[in-house]
């Protein structure tokens, strides 16, 4: 919590105390934003890759000549988004890949300094002044998104931020703006879900009746529509619908219990033990004063 939000929360709490209003009534209703990717509209032009590289001072690919669609690529520390081509039952399908901006991100729950941070608007961002480079975010991310600069003495974690800086200025993400075919739609997740359902409803033959990201790992900020089962597009279907922080929740809840109960138990065991050991003679007098 930074100073400003601390003051804000503190002020709100004080206001609550005075007016008797509950805090959630005072808080502005921020909606999670995300992006809907309609893979049936993507033509594989990779304008999004170029726009992303230019917006964030990263590698700007030569989309005409590098032949990158011939291989399956993944995001890297030089590219926050890539487009891959899949040969499916419905012919060639292009799929954009980037951070999914999970509703409850594994990376943020893994981070011991909150360097990986879920903003209240939805984008998951990385904060360099906090990160100690442990790379637990990379270990935990089910989508293998955070990337690390292994060749730098002062490495950064590199991943899509949903153009967090542009969003704050009221703009949409660079890739969305660059997309010539409206394959990408930016907006509150609630609206995106409506749009996605309407498209499936209006064209039941054109889409599989599933929105990838609606429930995966508890829901993600980025949503995908497809004409073919998502397995054919390289999506992992075995991730489940449980938000990742849930996997460590029981353990973390148990910690304070152990921390307070175990010392009492141990002290009780010591008092119960008589300290004598038949083989070793009388008890050590030192051990008798606790």
């Amino acid at each position, binding site marked *: 919590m930074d100073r400003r939000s601390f003051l804000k929360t503190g002020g709100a709490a004080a206001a609550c105390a005075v007016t008797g209003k509950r805090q959630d009534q005072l808080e502005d209703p921020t909606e999670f934003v995300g992006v809907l990717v309609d893979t049936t509209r993507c033509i594989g032009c990779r304008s999004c890759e170029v726009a992303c590289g230019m917006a964030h001072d990263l590698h700007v690919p030569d989309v005409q000549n590098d032949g990158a669609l011939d291989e399956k690529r993944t995001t890297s520390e030089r590219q926050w988004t890539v487009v891959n081509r899949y040969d499916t039952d419905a012919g060639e399908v292009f799929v954009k890949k980037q951070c999914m901006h999970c509703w409850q991100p594994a990376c943020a*729950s893994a981070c011991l300094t909150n360097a990986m941070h879920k903003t209240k608007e939805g984008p998951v961002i990385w904060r360099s002044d906090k990160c*100690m480079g442990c*790379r*637990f975010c990379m*270990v935990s991310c089910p989508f293998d998104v955070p990337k690390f600069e292994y*060749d730098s003495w002062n*490495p950064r974690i590199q991943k899509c931020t949903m153009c967090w800086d542009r969003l704050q200025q009221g703009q949409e993400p660079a890739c969305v703006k660059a997309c010539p075919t409206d394959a990408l739609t930016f907006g509150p997740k609630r609206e995106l879900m409506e749009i996605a359902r309407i498209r499936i409803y209006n064209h039941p033959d054109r889409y599989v009746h599933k929105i990838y990201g609606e429930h995966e790992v508890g829901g993600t900020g980025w949503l995908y529509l497809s004409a073919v089962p998502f397995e054919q597009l390289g999506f992992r279907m075995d991730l*489940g619908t449980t938000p990742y922080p849930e996997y460590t929740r029981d*353990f973390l809840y148990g910690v304070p219990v152990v921390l307070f109960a175990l010392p009492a138990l141990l002290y009780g065991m010591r008092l119960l033990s008589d300290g004598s050991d038949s083989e070793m003679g009388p008890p050590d007098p030192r*051990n008798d004063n606790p």
Partner: protein
Amino acid sequence: MSSGATLSAGAEPLQKKPSFWTPFNVISLPIMAAGLIILVIRFTQGLGSVTNLNQEFPWGFWIGFDVVTGVAFAGGAYVITFTVYVMRSRKYMPIVRVTVLNGLLAYIFYAGALVLDLGRPWNIINPIIGNDFGYNSVLFLVAWHFLLYMAAEFIEFSPVVAEWLGWRRARKILHSLTLAAVIFGVTLSTLHQSGLGALFLLAKAKIHPLWYSEFIPILFFVSSIFAGLAMIIVEGTISHRVLRDRVKMGNFDFEEIIFGLAKGAAIAMFAYYFFKLLVFLHEGHWEYLGESWGYLYLLEVGGLTLVPCILFAFGVRNRRIGIVRFAAVLTLLGVLLNRMNVSIIAFNWYVPNHYYPSWMEIVVTLMIICAEIWVFRWIVTRMPVYERSAPGPDETEAERL
């Protein structure tokens, strides 16, 4: 300070000073020099210049071996202090000091090696000073518990330092803190030994089903008990040979202690084995047993857990010290294989290009081990780690300090 001078003077060996060029020194010095050079490269050119880490394997040998395995091997300290100070078993008094020293050094060197693996080590103070507390992170918990446990172990060991320096008042005060430090230390160990396992709960999508289980934290905790006990047996056996003239056990029989430790290890291992079996039956991944992953699993659980468990029991029953020592080595290999499986080998098991450590990663790890042995040797040849450990006439005399 005058009394300190007499005490340390009394600790000087009486015989002629042995040659500096012992085999260990001859081997370890070049390794440590090479390790330092590699570290200079690592801190100027980045982790990628010396390690085989990549985007798919962000954690390699330095985490999987140095930290995750090293900390399990250091579990002896909390097990023995629990037995001696909580259960008040005097039998293991003679090895308390050396075991706590080993635990403390293991934490300083092996957990400390974590710093070498951090991309931005200068930010390591952030989770301590509060540039943001990630309360929801298991790693946050592990980091804090490491830190506090090192403090607890240092307090447990500090009376030895005070004795060495001849600070009688300080020794008395520090000694009075021992029980609190032990209780605190055992609690913290329970939490961070299991916490190391809990780290991997978040890698559910990546760890092979034979090794992923929601019970990893409990399995890590239980295995740290017998890993620690086996380490005491192996380490004690070696140091009793190498430091023969330093180890004065009074009327104590070190073999008797080893048999006791082996008994404890056998029981803990059987509990662990049974629990592993329950987890396997519950998950029911029979289909993997016929392939290479299954063989690796069977090697770990059968060959390197059940077999040494039986050997321990057999060795104790028939009083065969050689079998017990062999079982201890097998046990350490088993725990090593288990930790490597969870953190590296079965991690991202479906990825075609698997990670293996570079020779430079191994040299740095060897450097850390050598450095730890140097410091251990420096301390045990100066401080009363072994001498005062045997109760006897001098023990009661020491009580009057």
